[in-house]
């Protein structure tokens, strides 16, 4: 089993599309990931061992099952908790089977069988697997049926029908949005007017001129925007710069005065 092509077995173990097949040993390796859960694996093993589901050879099946769980671990597939729970159940049943049978009361023999609960679960599970299959074939038929194209009146109803979960998700989204804003608030509190003034002076020095609407657009919050505005006013007041606008409602440019003279 060591020479397995590990790549083929890298899959999302919980979400695999699955049919349980494969009788040959080679094929089995490829199908390993297709067990949707521990009950599927167990059913597979029972079938492969040609055992009777009503009389499961628990020791043999437990050994095989553990072998698979170990294999999964070896292949670095994170073994889901459900598989481990089942392993524990199997081991427990196995140990109880080893205990001497208590003398059974007439007509109640079955209920003493430590395997009974598991067998019931397996049978129940199998029923639902079949139900799932029948749903699947129904859905396939339905996919061949089409409803009419949109007609004019449909455009008047661009609404969605909502469930409580939609309601909840809407609320979650709003809260997430809110949380982002709060985080930004904290960040922006760290910026002082002095910081902003320093940043602006530096930018003006290196870029020679600043397009004010572009500068304001870069601000992440109202507070930063106000700081930027005050900083610009301060620069205009204290340094030799020129503010000009080439046309009414046009962009306002802040330019270092000596650069303008030079150009």
């Amino acid at each position: 089993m060591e020479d397995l092509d590990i790549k083929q077995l890298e899959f999302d173990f919980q979400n695999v599309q699955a049919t349980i097949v494969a009788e040959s040993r080679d094929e089995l390796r490829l199908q390993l990931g297709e067990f949707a859960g521990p009950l599927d694996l167990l059913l597979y093993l029972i079938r492969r061992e040609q055992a009777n589901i009503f009389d499961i050879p628990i020791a043999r099946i437990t050994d095989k099952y553990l072998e698979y769980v170990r294999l999964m671990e070896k292949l670095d597939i994170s073994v889901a908790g459900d598989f481990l729970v089942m392993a524990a159940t199997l081991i427990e049943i196995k140990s109880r089977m080893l205990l001497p049978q208590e003398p059974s009361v007439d007509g109640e023999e079955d209920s003493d069988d430590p395997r009974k609960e598991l067998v019931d679960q397996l049978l129940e599970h199998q029923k639902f697997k079949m139900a799932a299959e029948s749903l699947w074939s129904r859905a396939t038929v339905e996919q061949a049926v089409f409803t009419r194209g949109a007609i004019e009146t449909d455009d008047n109803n661009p609404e969605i029908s909502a469930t409580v979960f939609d309601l909840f998700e809407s609320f979650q989204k709003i809260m997430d949005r809110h949380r982002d804003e709060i985080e930004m608030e904290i960040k922006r509190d760290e910026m002082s007017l002095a910081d902003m003034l320093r940043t602006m002076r530096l930018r003006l020095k290196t870029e020679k001129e600043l397009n004010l609407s572009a500068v304001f657009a870069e601000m992440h919050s109202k507070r930063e925007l106000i700081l930027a505005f005050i900083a610009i006013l301060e620069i205009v007041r204290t340094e030799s710069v020129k503010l000009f606008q080439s046309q009414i409602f046009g962009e306002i440019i802040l330019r270092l005065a000596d650069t303008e003279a030079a150009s």
Partner: protein
Amino acid sequence: MAAIEALIFVSDEPLPVRVLVRILNEDKDSIETALEQLSVDYEERESGLQIRQIGGGWQMSTKTEFHEEVREFLKTKPSAKLSLASLETLAVIAYKQPVTVPEILEIRGVQSASSIKTLLDKRLIISRGRKDTVGKPMQYGTSRDFLIQFGLKDLSELPSIEDFEDLVQ
């Protein structure tokens, strides 16, 4: 009957009988008779369409035999099917509803959280209130969309779970 046909056509969802009763101001029985007749008419004349009962209402749709032409025209592919895990979870919910997450776990033997999320996203299941036990877990049931997508008139059309018992070895 012609008015019924017009209304079924206009409705973008399966049209419940009670809506027809209200709009046309006729009694339930005669509307139901007319609906049955309409459905038979479509079946009998060699139409490309059918009128049938689905998801608690009546709907007009194409017949399955033209799916190739329609698909060619709409350039659609059969949409992504549900994973086996989701399908199994859906089966458990369909037959055991209303059912809680722990109850689903017990039957499937696997945590089904991601499947339930998928089914909720696809609107195939809906919440059905809380169960009055420890922890008040949320209960789930199938939606009307489930009936429509699986071509069911109502839940009673699901084959009974006992029918599958015979098939189990």
